[in-house]
């Protein structure tokens, strides 16, 4: 029987290590991998409040927005689909709790299906614009917004975390390598730095436990802002 494991994120093999502070402050794009964030999808006709009671975060009703609370983010993915992102190792508790609270809805642990690349820096909007067709201008997007789209040739779930701006890109694990290289290449002429990579926690089998009420703190982002974007303009009418 195995003694211990190295739990491996899809970018572990790159041996990413943080650049020093000077380098990150000079860079136009700063990237980090957020490993092992817990991710659970919810499908069904679900009253947002029931999730709030179960997990401490409400489900956003408005398309392409995010609600946060209790160290969790709930991302709107579709009219009957949400992704709840939490700190590492929370997935079991989350799925357990949800399944109990919402019988008849589809609750699927998809933690391992994606990893998260966090991007920020003075040129982050420009560099994302090199491969993503979304309009990320503050008038059209903003903190608390999310969207599914593509970056380069990879499908992504994009979440603007704050107004700095800082974006979390949830990418399918098999394509993480590709997307990382894509971002590095796109940003290369302008300077790219790697920021503290959250260390993979050692594997421990989560003891069967009750819903803890609050999840372990999860706040690597520098300036977190309230849930929704302040300026969500009315949707534009289709042109012509």
């Amino acid at each position, binding site marked *: 029987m195995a003694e211990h494991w190295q739990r491996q994120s899809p970018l572990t093999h790159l041996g990413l290590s943080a650049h020093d502070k000077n380098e990150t402050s000079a860079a136009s794009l700063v990237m980090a991998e957020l490993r092992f964030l817990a991710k659970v999808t919810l499908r069904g006709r679900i009253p947002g409040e029931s999730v709030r009671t179960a997990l401490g975060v409400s489900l956003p009703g408005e*398309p*392409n927005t995010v609600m946060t609370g209790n160290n969790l983010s709930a991302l709107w*993915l*579709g*009219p009957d*689909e949400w992704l709840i992102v939490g700190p590492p190792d929370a997935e079991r508790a989350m799925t357990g709790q949800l399944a109990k609270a919402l019988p008849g809805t589809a609750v699927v642990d998809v933690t391992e299906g994606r990893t998260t690349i966090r991007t920020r820096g003075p040129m982050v909007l420009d560099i994302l614009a090199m491969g993503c*067709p*979304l309009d990320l201008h503050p008038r059209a997007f903003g903190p608390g917004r999310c*969207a*599914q*789209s*593509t970056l380069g040739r990879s*499908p992504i779930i994009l979440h603007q975390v704050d107004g700095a701006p800082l974006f979390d890109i949830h990418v399918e694990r098999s394509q993480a390598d590709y997307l990382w290289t894509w971002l590095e290449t796109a940003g290369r002429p302008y300077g790219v730095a790697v920021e503290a990579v959250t260390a993979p926690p050692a594997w421990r089998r989560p003891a069967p436990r009750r819903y803890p009420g609050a999840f372990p703190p999860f706040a690597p982002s520098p300036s977190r802002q309230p849930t929704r974007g302040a300026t969500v303009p009315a*949707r*534009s009418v*289709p*042109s*012509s």
Partner: protein
Amino acid sequence: MMLIPCPWCGDRLDAEFTCGGEAHIVRPDPATASDAEWADYLFMRKNPKGVHHERWFHAHGCRRWFHITRDTVNHRILAVYAITDSAPEAAG
């Protein structure tokens, strides 16, 4: 490069979508459909020059199917409606 109005996500680049072709094709009852009817359902299409009711799938977005009415000549989008709705009268 069209701007497709997803009823959920708003206007998005057409490359995020898959076009599902002609809308409102009724799948006949396999128990009673003749070979000709089945062929009609499988293969025959209106393929109109002009107003076309069609299905689109927001493949790289919310992954929902919906209907649009589009002019196949100038690509104007004349209507957007739910996948469960029938074609709007006004748009032809």
